[in-house]
C-alpha cells in the first residue's frame, strides 16, 4: 500500500531546514539576558581591577616586610637556548644550607625556553661574604642523566643582591654550560 502524500510530511521537511538554521539562533541570548550580562561584565571588570591593585599592594607589602632591601637576596634562573640540557630540577644552597629544591613542569621549562626568568629564591642574608651553590639535574647530551653544580661567592652589601643562574649551550664542546653571576 502506498501512503498518500500528506502536507505534514512536507512541513516536516521544511521544519528541518528551519531547525538547521534555527539551532544557533536558540543559543543567542535575549536582549534582556544580554543587557544583564553586560552589566555584570562591567561590574566584574571593575572588581577585577580592584583585586589586581589589592594583590599588587599585598605583594609589595610582603616583600618589603619580609625581605627588606638591606638584607634581600634573590636568585633567578634562566635558560639561553638550552639544547644540550633538559632541566628537571634545581637544588639551591646558601652557606651550605638548602634553601630551595625545585622540580620543573613541562610548562615551566617551556616558559624558561621562551625567555621567562624564574625567581627561584627570595631570602635574607647578613652583610658579608656568602657562598651560593646550585645543583642542576636533568638530561644532558644523548639523553644521559646529568647533574652539575656551580658555585658563587657573593659579598652581601647594604642593597638587595640579585644572582642569576643561567643554563646555556657551549657550542664548541656540545655540552651545557651553567653560569652564575651577580647583577648590580
Amino acid at each position, binding site marked *: 500500500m502506498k501512503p498518500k502524500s500528506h502536507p505534514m510530511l512536507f512541513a516536516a*521537511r521544511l521544519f528541518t531546514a528551519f531547525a538547521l538554521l534555527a*539551532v544557533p539562533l536558540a543559543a543567542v*541570548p535575549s536582549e534582556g539576558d544580554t543587557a*544583564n*550580562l553586560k552589566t555584570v561584565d562591567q561590574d566584574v571588570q571593575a*572588581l577585577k581591577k580592584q583585586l589586581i591593585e589589592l*594583590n599588587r599592594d599585598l605583594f609589595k607589602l610582603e616583600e618589603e616586610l619580609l625581605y627588606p632591601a638591606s638584607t634581600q637576596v634573590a636568585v633567578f634562573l634562566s635558560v639561553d637556548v638550552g639544547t644540550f640540557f633538559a632541566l628537571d630540577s634545581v637544588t639551591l644552597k646558601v652557606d651550605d644550607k638548602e634553601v630551595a629544591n625545585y622540580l620543573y613542569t613541562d610548562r615551566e621549562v617551556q616558559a624558561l625556553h621562551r*625567555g*621567562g626568568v624564574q625567581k627561584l629564591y627570595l631570602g635574607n642574608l647578613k652583610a658579608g661574604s656568602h657562598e651560593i651553590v646550585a645543583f642542576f639535574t636533568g638530561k644532558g647530551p644523548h639523553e644521559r642523566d646529568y647533574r652539575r653544580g656551580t658555585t658563587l661567592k657573593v659579598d652581601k652589601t647594604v642593597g638587595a643582591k640579585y644572582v642569576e643562574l643561567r643554563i646555556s649551550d657551549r657550542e664548541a664542546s656540545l655540552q651545557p654550560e651553567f653560569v652564575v653571576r651577580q647583577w648590580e
Partner: protein
Amino acid sequence: MHQRLSTARLYALCIFLVLGAAVAWTVQADEPSRDAPAPTQVRDLDYGDVLFHFFQDDYFESIVRLEANRDFDRLQHHAVEAELLAGGLYLSLGLHTEAERIFDRLLAGPVAPAVRDRARFYLARIGYQRGYYEAALRNLGLVEQPLPGKLEPERRLLEANVLMGLGRFGEAAKRLESWSETGGWSNYARFNLGVALVRAGDTARGRQFLEQVGTLQAANEEQASLRDRANLAIGFALLQQQGSEDPAAVLSRVRLDGPFSNKALLALGWAEANANRPDRALVPWLELQQRRLLDASVQESLVAVPYAYVKLASNGQASEHYRSAVDAYARESRRIDESIAAIRQGGFLDSILATVPQGDRPGWFWQLEQLPDAPHTRYLYHLLASHEFQEGLKNYRDLRLMQANLSRWTDSLEAFGAMIEAREIAATQREPRRQEMLSGTDLAALAQRQQELADRFAQVEAKREVAALASPQERAQWEALARIDAALAAMPAGPQRDEFAERARLLRGALSWELDRAYKVRATQTGRDLRQTRAALAEAGTRLAAIGEAGDLVPRNTQGFAGRVDELSERVARIAPLIDATALAQERALADLAVTELQAQQKRLRSYSTQAQFALASLYDGATAGGGR
C-alpha cells in the same frame, strides 16, 4: 559505524559552524600567549619573572608582578614592553576598558613605530570584539609595518573579519586572494569569508572559498575540524538550494567520527531523501538516532527516520518510530524541566568548576565534556557554545580563583600583623640597653684624646724623641739614671764619684743605644696603632649612629607597616563580600541565559513532537481511509 561522540560537544561546535566568522575568530583569539613577544635579552630580571608567569598563561600572577615591579622601579629597561604586555594581560583577563586605556596612552607618547603598530593592532582587536568595526578598521589601517611572528597573519585575518563585519565582502575577498600564507590563519579567513558570502547570497563565490578549505590536507585535528566545517557549510548550502548538484558527495567528505558528524549525518540523510533515495537516507539517520538526544540533529532524526519509512511505504515501522519519538521528546522535555529547576536553585557553576582541572589554560571549556550527567550539569557543555556564556563562566571562575587568592592573603596579613607586633615588643625590650649605651659613650672625648696622641706622636717623629717611645721598664731605667745623675752632682769630687759617673754614662749609653735601635719598629707600631684607633673610633661612631637611628626607625617602620597591614586588611574585608555578590550576580545572569536556552530547546522539542503527532494522525487517517476502501 561511527565512534560514539559527545553530542554536547558536537552541538556546541555545530553552532560555531553557522555563526561562522565570529566564532572562528574567537577560537584563535582566546589564546593571548600566542601574542607573546619573541624572547628578547632580559635586562631586568624581574621583567623575566613577569614573562615566566605570562608564558605559562598565568595572567593574573603575571599582571600583579608586573604592576608591583613597576612600582618598585625594577622594569626600567623594559618600560615600553612592560606597558604593551600590561595591555595584553588586561585584555586577556577581560578588562577591555583598562586595556584600551593603556594602548591609547602608549599611542599618545613617543614610542617606536613597532610598538605603535602593535598597540594599533590590539585596539583594533578590542574594537572588533566589541563590534566597533569602523574603529577597528581605522586602527588596522594605521598599522605601518608587518607585525612580528604570528601577529601578522592574525592581523590579516582580523582585517578580513572586520571587513566582513562591515558587509564589505568584496574587499575581504580581495585581501584573501592576495594572501599566500598556507598556515591555519588563512584557512580560517577563507572559511569565514566563504560562510559570509553564502549567507549574503553569493553562493558561487562563497563556494569557491569553502572548497579551498574543504579540500585542504589537514595536518592536525584543528585543521581537520575546519575542513569538516567547510564541507558541512557547502553541503547545507547545496541542500537549501535544491539544485542539480548532489550535496551527498560533499557531505561524505565530513569525517564520521569528527565533531560535525551529527550535522553531516542529518544533512546527508536529507540529501538522499531529496534525491528520492529514502532507503539510503535511513542509513545515516538510523545511526544518528542511536546518539544522545541532547543534540538537535539527533532530535530531528527521530522524525526523519519515520519520514523515510513512509517514503518506503513502511507505514507500520513509521508509526512505531513516530510514537517512540513522541515519547522520547516528552522524556527529554522532562529532563530539561529538571535541569531548569536545578539551575534555578543556584550553585550549579561551582559544582561544574569543581570538575575542571587546575590551571587557567585556553580551551579549558572543552574539558567540561566529561561533566556528570546530573540535572544541573547535563546541558552546560551544550550551553558553552554561546560566547556570552563562555565569557560569563570565565568571569565567574576568575572571581572564585581571586577569592581563594584573597583568602590566602587574609591568613598572611594576620601573620604580618603578629610579626610587626613581635618586632615592636623586641624593640621595646632593647630600648633601655640602647639608651644606656648611647648615654654612656662619650665618643667626642675619645676622639679628642686620639687626636692629642696623634699630635704628640707627630712631635716625637719630628724630633726623633726615642725615649718617648720607651717601654715602661726602659722609662723607669731612664728615670733611675736621671736620679743617679742628680746624686752624683751632689757628691764631692774624687775618684769614687768619677767611677760612678763613668758607670752611669755607660748605662745611659747602653740604654740610649737600645732605645734608638728599637725606635723605628716602635714608631711604625705606634703609627699603625693610632690609625687603627682612628678607624675603630669611626666604626664606633657609625655603629652608635645606627643604634640611635634604629631606635628612631623601628617604631616608625613597624608603625608604617602596621598601618599598611591595617589598610590592606580593611580593603580585603571590603572587597570579599563584593566578590561574593558579583559572583552571585554572574551566576544568576548565566542561570537566566541557561534557562532561556533550555526553554528554547523545549520549544523545539514541542514542535518536533507536534510534527510527529500530526504525521502519526495522518498515517492513521490514511490507514483508516485505506481500510475503508
